[in-house]
């Protein structure tokens, strides 16, 4: 087993810190400050336990997301705060979007705005998925991990990953259909 040196770890931090922070952001329902704290906590833990990483047993990404997922579980306690934050943000964004809609004149700008709105509504739909489904969806489709790695990170069978992926996609498609109708 090769021990990760400081140079290796610094390179991995530069490559993965943003991705991990984005994952935390989506897992915590958009709490940017919490996502930043969790990212720092994550890399501190990974650095402290770097001797436990064995490249033959799995990739750094799988290891990183396994630890990140455990941190998320602890962070779920902040859910009430996050829910309040999301509600406040949505309420604050609505007038801005309306103003933007009024300002947009060209059809291209309209189309871009429509797409942006759709994207935001889809992101909100992802946030509203039940925890177990959302975790699988984020790891499988947002972080683009293979099914086997998702199963390893979450500690669930591959079949469960597949069925939850199926449920997540079906739910999102239904919501999207409702939005476009």
């Amino acid at each position, binding site marked *: 087993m090769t021990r990760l040196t400081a140079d290796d770890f610094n390179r991995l931090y530069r490559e993965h810190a*943003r991705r991990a922070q984005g994952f935390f*952001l989506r897992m915590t329902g958009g709490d940017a400050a919490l996502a930043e704290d969790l990212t720092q906590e994550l890399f501190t833990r990974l650095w402290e336990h770097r001797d436990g990483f064995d490249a033959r047993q799995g990739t750094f990404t799988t290891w990183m997301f396994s630890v990140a997922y455990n941190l998320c579980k602890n962070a779920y306690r902040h859910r009430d705060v996050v829910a309040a934050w999301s509600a406040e943000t949505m309420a604050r964004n609505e007038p801005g979007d309306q103003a933007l809609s009024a300002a947009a004149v060209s059809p291209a700008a309209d189309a871009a705005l429509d797409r942006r709105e759709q*994207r935001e509504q*889809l*992101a909100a739909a992802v946030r509203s998925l039940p925890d177990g489904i959302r975790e699988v969806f984020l790891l499988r489709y*947002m972080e683009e991990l293979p099914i086997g790695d998702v199963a390893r990170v979450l500690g669930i069978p591959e079949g469960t990953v597949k*069925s939850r992926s*199926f449920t997540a996609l079906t739910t999102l498609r239904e919501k999207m259909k409702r939005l476009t109708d």
Partner: protein
Amino acid sequence: MIIRNKQERSVQETDYQPDVREFDRRLASHEVAADQLGAGRMDQLSQLEASSIDILAMLREQRDEENERLVVQERTFVDDVPSSAETVVRMPKLRRGLSPWWLVAAVTAGFVVGFAMPRSTRSASSASRYTLTADSLHGRSLAGGDVNMALLVTF
């Protein structure tokens, strides 16, 4: 008694074996069915993923934008730098244990021992100094010598 138990066991095993075989057969068929189901589910999932490509593309755009906006702290990890806790532990022993109270206690103890010691056990140098001092002629005790002795004991 033993023979009867053996017979009973053999009868039970004989009775049970067809069930085991039946169970194995059923399990095997279930596993095949489960594999087929899994494969079928995978096919369905692949189809669903393919037809949801526009949704996934939009969500990935959103993800990229969110990630781009994030402010990630600059951080450098360095090998072999002891943590603050380790630093405290690794301080020199003398400095770690030293406090003004220890010093006062040590000096006091030195004085007590120094003064309590019989004069015959004191060093030759302090004895000779005693005899050479003018004070000795007047039969006075040598406070200075005692202080020296006390300091010697202390350090």
